[in-house]
């Protein structure tokens, strides 16, 4: 019996592949394009100290299928590793920790490649990263404490190859991580909230949309309840806007008062004598008035892109900037952005809704075509993929530039600390001062004291050296930010850092490993919005704060 029914089933048109089935839950977030980017990524982890947060981060990248990774770690597996690191076991005691971590990570996903160093052939970090034959690293992350000479090697690699560099520091309940991007980092596919993306242009309709709305509403008062109750709310808004304009010198409602008045007009036009005692589509129109009747303005993220001044001529020739310039030209000419073209679902007859959708899509295609034309006329623009232009047009209002001011040069650690001291002192002092204010205003407290308190242990690589005392930490902090050692929060934070004695708590490292993995996924796939540029975590109060440092 079942067999008979089964033969009636049409064959699969698109049977998901094994890989699609395995990665189904993540493909719904970053699609095949994001997955392809992950699969070609090559990540280097330089691990030391207790060595947990790095491997926890890699775990979250191996599972979704990055291409390959390499771990550099000078330590041998010891007893303390067994109590804090899940990717070692007894059989590895005394053996290279990089090997244990790599082998146990590789068990998680047979599609991922991994190497460990130092090994028989490559005996130190220097030859590993100066091998120009080897595939380049997509991202490098390192964990504190780190030897200063390793750090300068990584920084010069990052500078030479324009490789994002991620630093992570975990001690006890505290942690921070910092992402150094090699230059401005634009993202087009930012995945804004669906509700934020509606752009219906009812204040600036184009001829096809006007005609469509007029057609549907020309005899609005004599329509049957069924017809009236199925007018799409965009059409309702357009109809009553036209009416409004005839009584207001051709102007649309602009003040809050006018908009609420306009809203009342639509409310009053709702039929209540029908069977349902109201009309869903008119309810939708009423609800849409305040969000929809907004004069177009340039979103801050895109403004930053438009106003960005290039320091690197190569950068300017990238596809993103060629498209951005074309969109800017479009904006200056039309005083609006290209139409995204998406119509949210609304009460309407199927056929009418599909027509409305087509009108928006056609206009969006026209705008995109105009931008593509500008792109093609730009030197280097002939190679730009039209799909990229389409994506930019769809997301224009949500395009975001990360690291707009920084980038370029990465100085040595010692210089960088001086930079923090010289250039960021005013900022730093401000962060600390804000805290005193915060206590009065009950704003969330700044986590900057945690960042400061972690600095003095950045290079304490030897876990067997005598533990650092809180007083010593404060002394070092005062060298970075004078008087910070007298701030109560900094004193507390120093006490917590001293308590950990350079050890990691598994939970904190797992949590931060999750956050860093999310950030790396965002950077590798160029989807969603990464932090800019430092995230501090406080495991005592279960809070995070993102700071630009």
């Amino acid at each position, binding site marked *: 019996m079942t067999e008979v*029914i089964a033969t009636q089933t049409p064959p699969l048109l698109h049977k998901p592949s094994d890989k699609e089935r395995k990665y*189904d839950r993540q493909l*719904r977030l970053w699609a095949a394009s994001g997955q392809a980017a992950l699969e070609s990524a090559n990540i280097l982890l330089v691990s030391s100290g207790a060595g947990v947060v790095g491997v926890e981060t890699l*775990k979250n*990248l191996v599972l979704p299928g990055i291409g390959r990774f390499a771990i550099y770690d000078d330590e041998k597996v010891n007893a303390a590793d067994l109590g804090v690191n899940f990717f070692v076991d007894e059989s590895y005691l005394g053996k290279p920790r990089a090997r244990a971590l790599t082998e146990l990570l590789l068990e998680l996903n047979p599609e991922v490649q991994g190497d460990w160093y130092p090994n028989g052939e490559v005996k130190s970090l220097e030859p590993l990263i100066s091998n120009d034959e080897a595939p380049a690293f997509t991202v490098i992350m390192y964990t504190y404490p780190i030897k200063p000479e390793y750090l300068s090697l990584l920084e010069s690699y990052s500078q030479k190859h324009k490789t994002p560099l991620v630093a992570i520091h975990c001690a006890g309940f505290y942690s921070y991580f910092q992402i150094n991007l090699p230059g401005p980092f634009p993202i087009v596919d930012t995945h804004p909230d669906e509700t934020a993306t509606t752009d219906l242009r009812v204040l600036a309709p184009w001829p096809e949309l006007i005609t469509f709305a007029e057609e549907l509403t020309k005899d609005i008062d004599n329509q049957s309840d069924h017809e009236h109750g*199925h007018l799409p709310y965009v059409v309702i808004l357009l109809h009553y806007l036209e009416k409004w304009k005839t009584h207001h010198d051709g102007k649309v409602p602009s003040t809050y008062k006018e908009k609420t008045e306009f809203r009342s007009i639509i409310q009053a036009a709702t039929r209540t004598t029908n069977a349902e005692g109201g009309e869903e589509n008119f309810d939708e129109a009423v609800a849409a008035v305040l969000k929809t009747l907004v004069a177009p303005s340039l979103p801050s993220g895109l403004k930053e892109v438009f106003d960005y001044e290039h320091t690197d001529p190569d950068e300017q020739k990238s596809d993103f900037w060629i498209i951005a310039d074309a969109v800017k030209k479009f904006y200056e000419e039309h005083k609006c952005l290209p139409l995204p073209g998406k119509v949210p679902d609304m009460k309407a007859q199927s056929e009418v809704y599909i027509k409305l959708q087509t009108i928006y899509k056609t206009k969006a295609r026209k705008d995109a075509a105009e931008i593509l034309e500008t792109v093609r006329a730009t030197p280097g623009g002939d190679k730009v993929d039209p799909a990229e232009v389409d994506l930019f047009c769809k997301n224009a209002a949500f395009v975001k530039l990360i690291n707009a001011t920084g980038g370029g040069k990465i100085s040595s650690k010692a210089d960088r600390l001086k930079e923090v001291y010289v250039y960021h002192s005013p900022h730093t002092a401000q962060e600390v001062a804000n805290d005193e204010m915060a206590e009065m205003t009950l704003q969330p407290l700044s986590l900057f004291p945690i960042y400061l308190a972690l600095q003095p242990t950045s290079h304490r690589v030897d876990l067997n050296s005598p533990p650092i005392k809180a007083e010593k930490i404060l002394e070092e902090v005062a060298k970075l930010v004078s008087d910070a050692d007298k701030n109560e929060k900094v004193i507390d934070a120093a006490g917590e850092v001293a308590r950990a004695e350079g050890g990691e708590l598994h939970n904190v490292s797992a949590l931060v490993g999750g956050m860093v*993995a999310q950030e790396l996924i965002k950077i590798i796939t160029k989807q969603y919005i990464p932090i800019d540029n430092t995230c501090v975590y406080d495991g005592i109060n279960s809070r995070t704060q993102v700071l630009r440092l």
Partner: protein
Amino acid sequence: MDALTGNITSEQDRWKYLDKIRTRPGPNTNRQVFDGSNVVEYMSKMRVLVIGAGGLGCEILKNLSMSGFRDIHVIDMDTIDVSNLNRQFLFRQADVGKFKAEVAAEFVMKRVKGVKITPYNCKIQDFDEDFYMQFQLVVCGLDSIEARRWINSMLVNMVDEEVEDTYKPMIDGGTEGFKGQARVILPTVTSCIECQLDMHAPRAAVPLCTLASIPRQPEHCIEWAHVIAWENEKPFPKLDNDDPVHINWLYQKALLRAREFNIPGVTYSLTQGVVKNIIPAIAATNSVIAAACCNEALKIASNCAPFLGFPDNNYMMYSGNDSIYTYTFKHEKKDDCPVCGNLARELTVDPTWTLKELVDSFATRPEAQLKKPSIRAEGKTLYMQSPPGLELQTRPNLEKTLVDLGLEERQEIGVTDPAFATVMFKFKLKFAIK
């Protein structure tokens, strides 16, 4: 065993880093309740229950084992599916089809020496109060609101004010894409899952008339295939969401309907997503949320630092879509919470409604979400879903209006639902004519 080190790794050496924190007070430790000398012993004897061995559950089992807990129990009724492998890191391709709780427990016990994990391949509803009473802490990594509500009401109802051991802290995690939340519930002391129910409002259902006559979105076509076409044609005796042949049948039906109405966008993947209500999930987010939960577990068990739930904040929201944003706050306990409060909750109803309309409304109210409610009012049974005899007797009431049934403004009604056997939801009627 490695000759270099021998097998004598002492427990102190092994838990060196953890013990620095859990056995020694820091600047934030409440020294009145903290006793560092007792922590290691206490935690190793503590019995912890983990509910769920999926995305969060795998992480939770790892984290608890690495936090000094030694007696862990885990419940999960599910078996391993290939789509779990992108995040449920204790499972391999060869484990597909096996019970999650069993495989996860075995893996962690093998990796972390000295930890005992007891798996239960069944539903939480299969156990009674006596079972739950043996634990000192419950950590949940669940994907259904219903299961959370069930265990929540169980733990709240177990509290005997006179007996300290009856208070079982519950730590709950949840994720969706790059977002998630971790919360701590101290039964009857803090806000409970039921108090917070309106934060998880059910997704608004598409009206049946849209599905039946005016579809506009690919989802409408898929729901039509799912709800209407399947019922009419019954191609297989029972719809199995995990059977690709069944999903394909729905996909083909949805595709034909979409073609008829010129609606683009119906795909196999979307069909599967709509029918199974798939929530995107990744390892990274599970890692964040599970660790946030277990960090609270460690703090609660050892008092080595203040934890969520006391005195103020009890809820951490996490979002990684746009930069990283967390919001840690106090969700207030509700006096009219049907599970942990004493007061009846106000329920706005139209007195001209039939009892059936009232019964149906419970499913969609964000603050109730009861699918099979039975209703009583001061001594009278108005409607019972079961047993069948009683259902038959009370069924005629469904057609009567609330007024006809003698219900009055401010009157209290009691509602029960088989999904929450132990709870009587109390409501006070408020009349409002639409």
